[in-house]
């Protein structure tokens, strides 16, 4: 268990900057997820924490100690890889013991630690098998066991679930979460799957183009995304970003969005700070509404008229597609609430509406 500070860290290959002044700091026992599309620099950052990549600029500190110039083995970390990276010629037991053997841990202690880890991960019966005789999920377990036995300060996970099928991925996700709750270790976890990030993390860093776009608790990232990119990346279906206009009237601020038939929809009761109210009055804004921010309603000042184009029932709810502000909008509604071809009145949960500046695409507070 340890704290991790990433302090203005940069990484460049020649003139190409992969990471630009990334700063992230997490406390002991935190579960940090680095979330982003491929090529955003998240794996590079993880490798730099591990010591597998050099640091071009800035500092990485584990438990307050700068580790920039320490080799991986001296950083007291363990890592789980996407391809599991089990040593193919060794048995599961040898795989797990390899690190301890190199560090000169006495045999008795080694055996005890291996047994404990195997019990924790329910793989005691697999200890004498070779990796090639294991299924994907079992290999994943062994890889985690190999990381666990050394009780390192920091666990690093590099897209550990990407190679598993959908069902197993959900199971292993829960298992990782359970392990974290039980052991309380500090974890850095890289993924491009926003659901993994939401379910596992205590802190999420959404990354793009080598920059941390948003660093916060998962719910905060979901509810109040820092910019349009984060809003679209986190959540499925993504947050609706609807071009509109902020109007300030005697009854408070209101949002105006174009209807496809040439008319306009007006939602009042939006929560906006006084500062934003002054700066953006009469100006165009981007209106961010989560699909579940809509609900079928009888009518009112917070309602929009929606000409439902397509309905996609998912079971627990129905996704309704319509056009608003010149863009496709998806609403998550109760099953059978609307039918395609109908016009429905949808209420917007105004407290959860997020506004973005159309030019900078940053959230307006």
């Amino acid at each position: 268990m340890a704290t991790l500070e990433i302090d203005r860290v940069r990484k460049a290959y020649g003139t190409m900057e992969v990471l630009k002044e990334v700063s992230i700091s997490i406390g002991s026992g935190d579960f940090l997820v680095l979330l982003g599309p491929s090529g955003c620099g998240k794996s590079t950052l993880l490798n730099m924490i591990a010591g597998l990549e050099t640091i071009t600029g800035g500092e990485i500190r584990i438990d307050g100690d700068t580790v920039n110039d320490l080799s991986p083995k001296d950083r007291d970390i363990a890592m789980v890889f996407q391809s599991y990276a089990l040593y193919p010629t060794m048995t599961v037991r040898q795989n797990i013991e390899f690190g301890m053997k190199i560090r000169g841990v006495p045999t008795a202690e080694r055996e005890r630690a291996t047994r404990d880890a195997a019990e924790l991960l329910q793989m005691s019966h697999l200890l004498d098998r070779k990796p090639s005789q294991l299924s994907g999920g079992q290999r994943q377990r062994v890889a985690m066991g190999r990381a666990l036995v050394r009780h390192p300060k920091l666990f690093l996970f590099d897209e550990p679930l990407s190679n598993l099928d959908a069902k197993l991925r959900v199971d292993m996700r829960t298992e990782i979460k359970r392990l974290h709750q039980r052991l309380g270790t500090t974890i850095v976890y890289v993924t491009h799957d926003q659901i993994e990030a939401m379910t596992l993390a205590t802190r999420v860093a959404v990354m793009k183009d080598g920059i941390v776009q948003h660093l916060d608790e998962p719910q905060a990232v979901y509810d109040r995304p820092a910019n349009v990119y984060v809003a679209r990346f986190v959540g499925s279906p993504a947050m609706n970003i609807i071009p509109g206009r902020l109007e300030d009237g005697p009854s408070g601020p209101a949002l105006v969005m174009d209807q496809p038939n040439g008319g306009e929809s007006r939602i009042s009761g939006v929560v906006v700070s006084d500062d934003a109210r002054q700066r953006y009055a009469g100006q165009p804004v981007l209106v961010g509404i989560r699909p579940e921010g809509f609900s079928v309603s009888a009518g009112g000042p917070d309602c929009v008229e929606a000409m439902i184009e397509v309905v996609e029932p998912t079971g627990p709810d129905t996704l309704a597609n319509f056009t608003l502000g010149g863009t496709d909008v998806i609403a998550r509604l109760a099953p059978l609430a609307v039918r395609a071809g109908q016009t429905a009145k949808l209420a917007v949960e105004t407290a959860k509406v997020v506004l973005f500046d159309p030019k900078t695409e940053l959230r307006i507070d």
Partner: protein
Amino acid sequence: MAIEYGSAARSRMIGRTMIYSGLIGLAAFYLMPLWVMVVTSLKPLDEIYGGSFIGLPKVLTFEAWAKAWSQACIGTACTGLKPYFINSLMMVVPAVLLSTGIGALNGYVLTKWRFKGSNLIFGLLLFGCFLPFQAVILPMAQVLGRLGLSGTIPGLVLVHTVYGICFTTLFFRNYFVTIPDELTKAAQIDGAGFFRIFFSIMLPAALPIMVVSCIWQFTQIWNDFLFGVSFTAGESSPVTVALNNVVNVTMGRKQYNVDMAAAMIAALPTLFVYVVAGRYFVRGLTAGAVKG
């Protein structure tokens, strides 16, 4: 229907018969020289001069083999092939081990510890595979002279090791490139260093390609004649050079049976290696396609 089916089966059988008889015929043609060598080596000399060449021996005798092994005259010394066979073993074993070992290390560095210019170095090494023997003889002779290794077995070991590195490096590089880099990273985090990773993880995983490399090198080095004849003389010659001398030095009647026996003695070790390790050879060559 039944009739049609029957005729289809018949025509297929005719096709099969033709294919197999063709293959057997070609195989027999290809094996003819070996056949002649074996039967000739088992005949007494008189029978050969009596005109029987292809047929089975009337009198079976292993005299020619014994003579080739320990009595045949090479130049002025009539020691048989035995000392030269031992020379070849003394040359081939260290040369195979050294070139395979260095090739493995090279392949490991070129795939898992890439450095600036590593691809260029690999390209140059590849170029070495295409260098004809003749091109290196003169410079090699000079180097051996400076090192004081001219005309010695260790000199030949050096020559074959250097020449073999290109091939062994190619084998191991192409094999190690299929092993995920994450394996090295995981081992680094586990605390393993350069050589620990090499010996504990890479080499055990490289068993198939090691067999390929050893067979390849063994065959190349054992069968080499040019380097042997260029860099050694007299007692330190390898068996291939001695064989040439046995066959070319004739007193009285040409002893075909001894020549044949000597040639087979010289060829046996490579044959032996193929029979023992041949299946690993094929497996190793196709190993890159299978993931562990």
